[in-house]
């Protein structure tokens, strides 16, 4: 049975690396990068697609209803794999020791009972809302991070970019030019062939000309043996993606703002508790955060990583030791620029009457407030730009203050 589960993870991880994960970055440095005051902020947005079970990642052990609802997969403060206490109420999943260390060092924070404004339960619409920044799903073709970039003063072009997988995630799609890179290498077409093709596209198909030119530029930088996939297990590969990204972002002329997506969090069945499927995935995420930290080196002090997901999962486990689509969940912040060591939450409680539609953790914090707070403190975006352009119609979700140290 365990083999079966691991096999599934290994093969689906292949999907994540080559198809299901996307990593892309802004093609320019912000104007204030390398400014005289030495402030050079970096932002990495990590989207977990499939809906992360927030109650299993940061468990409210102090809530009397938690253990009953989460049943066979609930975390506990003792036993063979005890959860890591973050304060007297919340405890972190034991497969995230790196995040726990950052939290102790006050470089990581948790926001709990958080959600986007989306209140239905379709992954794809939920991801649309999460990434587009609009209040409802729709066929919007730009993401909030891209619109935030448009509001930033544009400096020099980056000499490198990165994208894992052949597509740009919606959160970074839009008018602001982006660059990408995938950690796979084919014997490459020579420059002359590429230039002839770009020329043909310029005359006949401008959209393909743009796409191919970008693809060609990006690929030049991202090299180095340690960035090629070496197989191995899922956790190692997740780390490897982050390592490659961090290497590019640490460079003086490398990108400052990037987005990454990991698939596979849709744990309907056999989710597992302290060990098991979700534990495995969380271990991969934890490793990726550690890679960002070490790869960015002294730049980690200016960095914030935001980890978010489209919605949470049911408070009560379902009939198959998993959880179905829900509402409230968590967001994670990590990085030297985070004012961390805190679980920020207006805890709604898990009594039946307090659950959203009697089934989900009720969201008490708007995820947009968290992201707006980060964007404002990290890049100086105004309330107005945030409320009208980046997250349209979001004036009521005010930027959360004091997230950045």
């Amino acid at each position, binding site marked *: 049975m365990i*083999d*079966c589960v691991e*096999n*599934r993870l*290994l*093969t689906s991880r*292949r*999907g994540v690396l*080559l*198809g*299901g994960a996307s990593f892309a970055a802004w093609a320019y440095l912000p104007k204030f990068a390398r400014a005289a005051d030495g402030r050079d902020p970096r932002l990495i947005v990590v989207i977990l*697609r499939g809906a992360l079970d927030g109650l299993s990642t940061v468990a409210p052990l102090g809530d009397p209803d938690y253990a009953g609802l989460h049943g066979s997969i609930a975390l506990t403060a003792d036993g063979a794999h005890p959860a890591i206490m973050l304060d007297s109420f919340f405890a972190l999943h034991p497969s995230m020791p790196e995040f726990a260390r950052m939290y102790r060092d006050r470089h990581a924070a948790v926001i709990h009972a958080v959600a986007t404004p989306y209140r*239905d339960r*379709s*992954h794809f*619409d939920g991801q649309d809302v999460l990434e587009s920044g609009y209040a409802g*799903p729709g066929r919007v073709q730009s993401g909030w991070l891209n619109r935030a970039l448009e509001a930033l003063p544009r400096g020099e072009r980056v000499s490198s970019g990165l*994208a894992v997988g*052949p*597509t*740009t995630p919606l959160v970074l799609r839009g008018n602001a030019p982006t*660059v*990408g890179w*995938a950690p*796979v*290498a*084919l*014997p*490459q*077409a*020579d420059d002359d*062939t*590429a230039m*002839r*093709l770009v020329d*043909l*596209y310029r*005359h*006949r*198909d401008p*959209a*393909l000309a743009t*796409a*191919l*030119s*970008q*693809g*060609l530029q*990006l690929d030049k930088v991202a090299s180095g043996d340690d960035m*090629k996939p*070496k197989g191995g297990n899922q956790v190692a590969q997740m780390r490897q993606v982050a390592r490659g990204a961090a290497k590019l972002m640490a460079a003086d002329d490398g990108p400052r703002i990037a987005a990454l997506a990991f*698939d*596979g969090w849709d744990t*309907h*069945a056999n989710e597992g508790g302290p060990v098991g499927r979700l534990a495995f995935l969380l271990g991969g995420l934890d490793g990726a955060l550690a890679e960002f930290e070490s790869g960015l080196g002294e730049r980690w002090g200016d960095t914030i990583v935001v980890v978010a997901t489209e919605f949470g999962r049911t408070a009560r486990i*379902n*009939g*198959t*030791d*998993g959880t179905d689509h829900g509402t409230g969940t968590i967001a994670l912040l990590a990085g030297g620029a985070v004012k961390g060591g805190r679980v920020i939450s207006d805890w709604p409680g898990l009594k039946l009457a307090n659950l959203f539609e009697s089934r989900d953790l009720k969201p008490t914090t708007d995820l947009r407030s968290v992201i707006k707070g980060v964007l404002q403190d990290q890049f100086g975006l105004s309330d107005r730009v945030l409320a009208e352009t980046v997250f349209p119609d979001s004036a009521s979700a005010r930027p959360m203050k004091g997230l950045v140290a």
Partner: protein
Amino acid sequence: MARDSQAALVALNRFGFGARGGASGDLINAASDPRGFVKAELARADGVLLEAPGLQSTPQLGQAVFAYQDQVKQAREAAAKAGTPPEASPPQAPNDQKPALRRNLSLNTAASEIAGQMADAKPAEAPAKPETMQPSAAAPPAAKPAPQPLNVIQKTFRAEALARLQRATLVECGFTERLVVFWSNHFCISASKGELARIWAGAFEREAIRPHVLGRFADMLKAVEQHPAMLFFLDNQQSLGPDSRAGQNRKRGLNENLAREIMELHTLGVGGGYTQEDVTSLARIITGWTFAGRQGQLGTPGSFVFNTNAHQPGPQMLLGKTYEPTGLAQGEAALADIARHPSTANFIATKFVRHFVADDPPPALVARLRDVFVRTDGDLKAFATALVDSDEAWKAPLTKMRSPYDFLVASGRLLARVPEDPGAYLNSLNLLGQPLWSPAGPNGFPDTSAAWAAPEGMKLRLDIAAQLGARLGNNIDPLDLLEFAAADAASIETRRTIERAESRQQALALLLMSPEMQRR
């Protein structure tokens, strides 16, 4: 016999898999009667089924997995007793890239293999110059390490993939195969779910999709939702009616995964008029829809069965209608009604037109197809015919981007190479983000041009085209191929770019990457 190369491009590229090279005459045939060329395939009712020696049924394949898993377990137990590592190889993730990685080849080597395998494929009816062709059965290079033997799951997956690729390469227009790919992606499973899903992926398409591609939507829906591969993919075999005997005994209950995706992705679509209550209700209705396990208590191992013991008793209210407790028939009645729901007609028509015609589907055409769907009670042959008969489908510019699968198949057809080994295609599909039968989620692969024309994707396509050019360019006149692919519908710029290429190799790469080959 008016010659209309532009309409021939629409016939071959929008509806089919592109012109075949060699002596096929596809472009000329399509030009003389574009609509007739496309519709001819729909008249061959058995042309949609896929039978090849060695392809097995779902129960047979399920039993093969059970036997394989038993073997592995026994080997492991024996080894544990003896205190040595097991002889039999452990169950590997049957990842077609993995053997290369495991052998610790550099990626560059692996990638040359990709193009190499594709280049070594057997020339079809090509006007071959035998003395310059690479021998298709040449001995592998001596330096290659011995490959790991494939297990039954990997072997089956590759055999299924090969049969599908060969069919796509050989058929005349490819409209029927394009319909198969469309419906297979609409009702997708993912082979990455586990060993059963991987071994069943091809059989699922052969058994649940193909027989109904020119049949009725309701029949396809029922065949899909009762197929063991779908039940496994979306966890329904684990879902128990909370008040059923099994639910009571085992203290387990509902899993609403399949029920939700039936309504959201397979039929009504988001906003199609269902609520969370309906999702839960449908989940209850289809409890007991499962497949028999290795012990075979419920039926032939690996076959669909209705397990009364797991079925939630009692009537259920779904979309405003009460379904009496009639066992299996309760769910079948519910699916039949959902298939006829107006939201379903609208959702399917929109998605279908988006796939074949434009990212922003022309509303009038969508409305017409929706009406055909409703009027014919979901007759998919009439539905497809209505698309071919429409004016919009012939007038809309060819702006859709070929998916990686379309691109690779179209290239293979133009080069007149029938694959003998699916490895090159499978690896290329992995690289380009469309691993065969393995989308990241139950919504399948994306279907918009933006998704497939991303910078990294274009760069990787060019690298693959350059590899093919390097391997095959010697033996091919690229201008001949351009005649096969587009003739006078090719743009002056494309023709000039190919004429002026510094080598045949380069010319071939540029041809494969030209807008005429990338757009459909």
